[in-house]
């Protein structure tokens, strides 16, 4: 599903170069649930964003499905991302002026999903995630757990093959953390591939495999 071949990402800084990814080789199979673990600054988020077509590596090649991601032009890559990849972030990043339903429907704009179909899917997903009564609420009116579930619903709208989650439970209490993992596992059991960046140990109970990183390298 995802393949990293000698992928490096170097950031130039005033203090010199920072090697965020250092010759990473990794393969994640379709339908796998993988947790990326490691200390802060070890390159986990960089790896996730690069896998999502959001961050061009300095060198190396990243393949998602059959597509060499960075061989695509920016517009094609954006289209590919809209149709195949869902993102969930630690800070949720819901659009503050849209209600829960419209935040989820936002994902249908770039994917070209028909309005009626998008509406039907959104209502189904939100109901499944327990947000049925919160459809017309703005993000500011939701609890943190509800916000993250709304963000997961948005990521799932286009029925992606791959779900990339960057510390999605970092701001949640244990009960909400478990709930998020349950929803990710449901997606995984339905055949989806999940890659999650996490600090905690809860992921061990849900992931098929834990990949450890250190100083931009996969160490285990």
């Amino acid at each position, binding site marked *: 599903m995802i393949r990293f071949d000698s992928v490096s990402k170097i950031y130039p800084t005033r203090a010199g170069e920072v090697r965020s990814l250092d010759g990473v080789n990794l393969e994640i199979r379709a339908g796998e649930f993988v947790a990326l673990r490691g200390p802060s600054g070890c390159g986990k988020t960089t790896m996730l964003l690069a896998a999502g077509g959001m961050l061009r590596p300095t060198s190396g090649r990243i393949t998602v499905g059959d597509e060499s991601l960075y061989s695509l032009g920016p517009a094609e890559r954006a289209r590919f991302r809209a149709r195949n990849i869902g993102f969930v972030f630690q800070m949720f990043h819901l659009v503050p002026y849209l209600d829960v339903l419209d935040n989820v429907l*936002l994902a249908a704009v770039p994917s070209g999903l028909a309005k009626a179909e998008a509406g039907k899917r959104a209502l189904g997903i939100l109901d499944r995630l327990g947000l049925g009564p919160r459809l017309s609420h703005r993000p500011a009116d939701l609890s943190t757990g509800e916000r993250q579930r709304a963000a997961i619903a948005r990521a799932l709208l286009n029925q992606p093959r791959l779900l990339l989650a960057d510390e999605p439970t970092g701001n949640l209490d244990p009960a909400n953390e478990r709930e998020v993992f349950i929803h990710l596992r449901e997606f995984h059991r339905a055949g989806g591939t999940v890659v999650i960046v996490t600090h905690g140990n809860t992921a061990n109970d849900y992931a098929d495999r834990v990949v450890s990183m250190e100083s931009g390298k996969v160490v285990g």
Partner: protein
Amino acid sequence: MIALVIRELWHRKFNFLLGALAVTVAVALVVAYVTTADAAQRETVRVTRDMGFNLRIIPRSTDMDRFWAEGFSDQTMSDDSVGKFVRHTNAFFAFNHLVASLQRRFPVGDRDVILSGLGPTVTASAQQGRPMGFEIKPGTVHLGFQVAQRLGRKQGDKVELGGRVFTVARALVESGTDDDIRAFVTLAEAQQLLHLEGRINEIKAIDCLCLTADQDPLSILRAELEKALPEAKVLQMRVLADARARQRRMIESYAGFVTPFLLIACAVWVGALAILNVRERRAEIGVMRALGFGSGRIAGLFLGRAAAMGVFGALAGYAAGSAVALRVGPQIFQVTAKSIVAQPSLLGWALIGAPVFAAIALFIPTVLAVTQDPAMTLREE
């Protein structure tokens, strides 16, 4: 996308209203300027015209030493000279407001006055024959300040000139020039009193200021006169002519300077607010990128904002600009106040121009939004 733009505007009303206010000010400024421009132009023409004649066309044979000593030419030319001059094709290219006159010292009481006979004002057809100074009716006299004082005459009194009785139409206020020792009558009556029928000794005029800055006005005036009226020569009252030219150029360059300056200031204002808007929306732009929004759609969000700002600014600016022009304009341009009227066609131009103006002002912020690295934003957040 349109719904998204509208919801964002509603969510960030304050930022939008501040931006729309800047566009409104810009549009109002242009509308007020254009609405009053004609009146301002005409007012300036009137003000500079009222500075008086600055050209004196006198017989070529005039002895200049005596001319400057006496204040008028001792030679004469036919009073058909004005007609002959205006029939020349390019007469009004360089000259305007032509007034034929005959001036001579003339005894009134125990002293001489300068008897001045003035013909009707001859102007270019576009000027509609508006007279310079005052009109003189036959049988009346306008007495200079000093003459009226010496004779003890005021408006409505009678005064005898060369055996003929004239009614004093006006006793002029003190001018500080030799006009104070003049008595003004019609040209025909002056010719009769002086026994110089059909003769004049000067044509007063104003240069028409159709000349460009690199042209030497006096040489052009002389060349034109040479062709039209070879028996005459022209003197230019340089200080007055320069003052007229400076006044007109000043008013034109002032508007030319102030308007673009204020428009740029408004554009910077709109742009600065938009940069704040982009900064505030960095995470939103980042997540939209993550969802698969392309550069076109991201730019569309900001250009949609510019269009909304432009339409709002055009409507409000047209209303405000017209109101200011109609209310304040007549107080500034009192003489030409009637020419200040609302111009509905400006609304159409405003509705086209204001969104373009806002889009130009939002160009840099939009580029910032489109080129912003979403990964960096999402990592930072």
